[in-house]
């Protein structure tokens, strides 16, 4: 089997990350914003794994597990908030949420 070179993997990770950033910026729906953030986090995770394998250390994968855990926690809270928002606003359009400004 062939091993992908670190650079390519990083490139992929970078690509994912940018996609995520773009998503967060583009989408108006909170739900999809959350999703895009997850993509970004996973991009980071991918980068860690690549690095770990590059240096032949477990640390990268350890880090990835942590990231997963954290992402899970985050999503759970996020979803509950989204429920609340839907409850209050009857929509998930982030642009409704600009009560506070100035």
């Amino acid at each position, binding site marked *: 089997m062939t091993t992908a070179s*670190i650079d390519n993997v*990083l490139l992929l*990770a970078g690509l994912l*990350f940018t996609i*995520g*950033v773009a998503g*967060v910026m583009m989408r108006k729906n*909170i739900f999809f*914003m*959350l999703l895009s*953030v997850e993509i*970004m*986090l996973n*991009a*980071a*995770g991918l*980068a*860690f794994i*690549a*690095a*770990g394998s*590059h*240096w032949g*250390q477990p*640390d*990268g994968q*350890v*880090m990835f597990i*942590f*990231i997963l855990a*954290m992402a899970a*926690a*985050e999503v759970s*809270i*996020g979803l509950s*908030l*989204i429920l*609340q*928002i839907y409850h*209050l606003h009857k929509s998930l359009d*982030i642009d409704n*949420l*600009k*009560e*506070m*400004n*100035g």
Partner: protein
Amino acid sequence: MAPNDFLALLPLLILSIAAVLVMMLIVANQSHRVIQMASLFLFLTSFLSLFLIPVTLPYAIAPLLLIDSFGVYMMALIVFSALVVNIISYVYFEGKEEGPKEYYVLLFLCTLGACILAVSQHFVSLFLGLEILTIGLYALIAYLRSRQRAIEAGIKYLILAAFSSAFLLFGMALIYVQTGSMSFSLIAHSLALETDLPALFLLGIGMMMVGIGFKLAIVPFHMWAADVYQGAPLPVTAFIATASKGGVLAVTFRFLTSIDGLRFHVLSASLVVLAMVSILLGNILALQQKNLKRLLAYSSIAHFGYLLVAFVPNSPLSLPAMSFYLSAYLISTLAAFGIMAVRSDGTEEAEELASYTSLFWQSPLQASILGLAMLSLAGIPLTVGFTGKFYLLAAAIQNNYWALALVLVLGSILGIYYYLRVINSLLKGGTTTGALPKTAFPYFLVLSLVMLSLLALFILGLGVFPESLIGYLKDLQMGGTTSVY
């Protein structure tokens, strides 16, 4: 686990156990009062346990944590802030529609996270601490979940925080790729020979800056601050402004100094720029602000700009200067938020400046405390804030960062304007003594006021006789044992 490890970790352990204990109390559905007392007691114990930590510092718990006198001091600050927040929470949450009990659990967790940050010397612990802190905060900010503002603030904070931690993580990853290690000391080791930063590393640092910058609300990553401050419940705002920012600042400082990153012109220069813009923009934003929470949010942006001024020179003075100013900032901010919390009632926060008109003649104590806090934040002599600014300027000028010093001065001049506005509205109006609100639960009100008066005393005392603290901070140690794993 060696007894020393146990002793060194005692504060952290107490905090984590406390979270569990409080949960049990809730299960045993105890009253708010009991839980408040318990958590107060637990915070106190963890605070006191900091003094038990053996004097054989620095003490490394390889590879993640390094408990040194700097770390201990930072933990002390964090736990103390949490303690104050805890005290003022009772008066605030009593009579709110939301059951306040779980709040304390989260408070403990967040405090724990902040403390871990303060002593972490490894990306993993950094990340863990940061996320324990942040995830706790998501919940805390949106704690009054039936309130639109709270929810709005919560979701804003959540998405932005996650967004920024993604940057942070990616940055770490890149650095890991570059150096092959995630512990600060080893990164420093691998960097030791470099004369200028490798591109990948630079990119990594840059992305980490984005993440950190967000947490510290430094321009240009500051925009969330005002809204979240305004939306969150007052004690939580206080916590964000003090404990959480303090922890992040501590770890940033530790990271940058232990890898000696500031010897690279790129980093120091970009930090200088960040500091300058934060100072100026923060103050300018605050100038005409009518909402006290938002005002403090903007001013805190400026204050972290000031704190960066202490980083940059990377001189023997910068550690004590940073610690001193951070302490000054924490004390003053806590006092300010404390008074606001005490003034708020079940339905709405006392956040509009208008609601403080002629407070001085109605309840002199509260007004004087708030006024002192403002003077201290403005950096007027006789208050600790002045000594702090003096320290920062000293650090800057000693290394001939004249431009930075001038910007700092300019910032403080702008600052005076809006702090004075607050004080003016306190003193305005007639001497008609209005009725003092919050007579519902006198004990905790008195307790909070005593606590706040204590803070006021600190503000004055450290302002007039700062020597004691300065003397202590001067021989704070950081790092020391490069524990290779």
